[in-house]
């Protein structure tokens, strides 16, 4: 067992596989990035070449900056993603805690009901959601998007988090109760920090689809003030002509914020549980 793990050939093979995978995964991102700095001609002539003194051009970024209110889109996407994530994590964790910690009638049924959403895609309800938003006057607001994304993210969040919360030591929670901590303090101060890796997982899983979503922004909030980045970038993609410089530049810039959020969450993932609480 131990020998196999330290065998240099195995180590090399393992790293080889991982490096290969990394290259494949990063290749499209790399191509987008280099091409966003090239002239239109250069993009089509030699898509894989690095920008040279000849082919270097910032025209894509200039178009993006000029056309539309790109920073507003950016801000909209950021608000929607961060607010939805916050709500998903908060309510998901609270529901998960109640389901895993308290014995009450219908606990099982409630858990199943909340998990049902994992199997039913929320887009099936688009028409009903739109009608509801129209009725409540939320069309063309970011609130509409935040509500929908929160609903979309909750089922999986509850499911994953309640599984993790069941593993948090009962003794620790009971020690808190004996010391006179309220259930809220126990939840926020004792349990949440211990399930932080699970929270980070849920956050990462939810973040990317929300950030990239085109469907709901297009239907619920297509107005100029509420456009998200993904929707805003669509102006450069036409039926007949596509401004590739602009599209690539917009995409390159769209990667940045998710990357930053991802780095923040994955730190949490790696840092792991503060050990030494129990045993």
């Amino acid at each position: 067992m131990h020998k196999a793990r330290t065998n240099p050939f195995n180590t090399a093979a393992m790293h080889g596989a991982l490096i290969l995978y990394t290259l494949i995964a990063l290749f499209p991102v790399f191509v987008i990035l280099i091409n966003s700095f090239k002239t239109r001609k250069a993009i089509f002539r030699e898509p894989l070449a690095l920008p040279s003194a000849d082919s270097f051009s910032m025209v894509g970024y200039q178009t993006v900056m000029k056309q539309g209110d790109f920073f507003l889109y950016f801000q909209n996407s950021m608000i929607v993603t961060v607010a939805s994530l916050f709500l998903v994590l908060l309510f998901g964790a609270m529901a998960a805690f109640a389901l895993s910690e308290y014995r009450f009638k219908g606990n099982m049924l409630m858990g199943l009901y909340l998990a049902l959403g994992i199997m039913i895609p929320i887009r099936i309800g688009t028409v009903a959601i739109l009608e509801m938003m129209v009725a409540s006057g939320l069309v063309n607001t970011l609130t509409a998007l935040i509500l929908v994304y929160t609903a979309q993210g909750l089922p999986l969040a509850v499911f994953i988090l309640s599984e993790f919360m069941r593993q948090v030591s009962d003794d620790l929670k009971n020690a808190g109760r004996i010391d006179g901590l309220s259930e809220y303090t126990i939840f926020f101060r004792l349990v949440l920090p211990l399930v932080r890796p699970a929270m980070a997982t849920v956050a990462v899983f939810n973040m990317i689809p929300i950030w990239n979503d085109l469907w709901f922004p297009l239907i619920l909030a297509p107005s100029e003030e509420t456009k998200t980045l993904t929707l805003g970038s669509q102006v450069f993609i036409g039926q007949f002509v596509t401004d590739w410089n602009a599209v690539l530049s917009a995409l390159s810039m769209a990667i940045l914020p998710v990357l930053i959020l991802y780095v923040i969450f994955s730190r949490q993932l790696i840092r792991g549980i503060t050990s030494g609480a129990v045993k």
Partner: protein
Amino acid sequence: MTALTLSNVNKSFGAVHVLKDINLEVEDGEFVVFVGPSGCGKSTLLRVIAGLEDVSSGEVRIGGEVVNTTPPSKRGIAMVFQSYALYPHLNVRKNMSLALKQERQSKEVIEQRVAEATRMLNLEDYLDRYPSELSGGQRQRVAIGRAIVRHPKLFLFDEPLSNLDAALRMNTRLEIANLHQQLKTSMIYVTHDQSEAMTLADKIVVLKAGRIEQVGSPMELYNNPANKFVAGFLGSPAMNFLPAGLVSEGDERTLGVRPEDLVLAGDGPLKVTVQHVEQLGGDTNVIARIDDHQITARLFGQHVVQAGTELSFGIADGKSFYFDKDGARLRA
């Protein structure tokens, strides 16, 4: 004054009846140990006393007051858990002072009580460390310290030593005994280790399948067990049980003899074949067969006995216990 009174306490989890009609009194300053096999309901009983579980029926009184509906933090108890259960995000000092802060004690009181507990437990050097930076024994001492600072009316310990290694367990056991002498507070201590029970307890409560089998001082239980279960549970090596017919023809009862009450006697009634010998230095344990039954004899001093040897044992005067076939003690 009685520190704790349980009257007709029952506890069910759904259809599972875990505690059955428990009646018990714990006097002020008494050290009471709950023992019993795994799953007999010791922890559940402790959690009921602590208020972490509600009783299904019956009454719990602490210091004379009915506390059935009092939350754990207001019951005047403190609990030490098997898994330490220290707060991972707080250092030792804050772990110990949290409960006092919740009670809104003044800074001076908190400081003085933490200082007192640290001194008792020799934790001075570790006050600013986090639980993850402590060894198992130190963590358990912090957990005990967290209980001491509250000045409770009743201490509850749930198998506090079972995560420690043997040597450390001995030391911590002594520390707990010292602590009890200094504090003179009532303590309830759960264990399934009968030697811990014998050494620490003023009073042992033997539980089996959710019922109290017998309550008494360690020596009372040892010398005068109420039934076969208690007789077999306390004492190490455990009591031998044989058909009494082996000693006197036609006797239907079960005979119980403690290993140290078997004496070598050439004309003894128990003719055995030695299977295995354990030399412990001070004593020698002889494990032997008689018909299909295995018996253990404990001889004082060092004896050289070969496996396969035939020996005869007699029983020391007045040291035979008799049980009927349901395990109830028969007093001759």
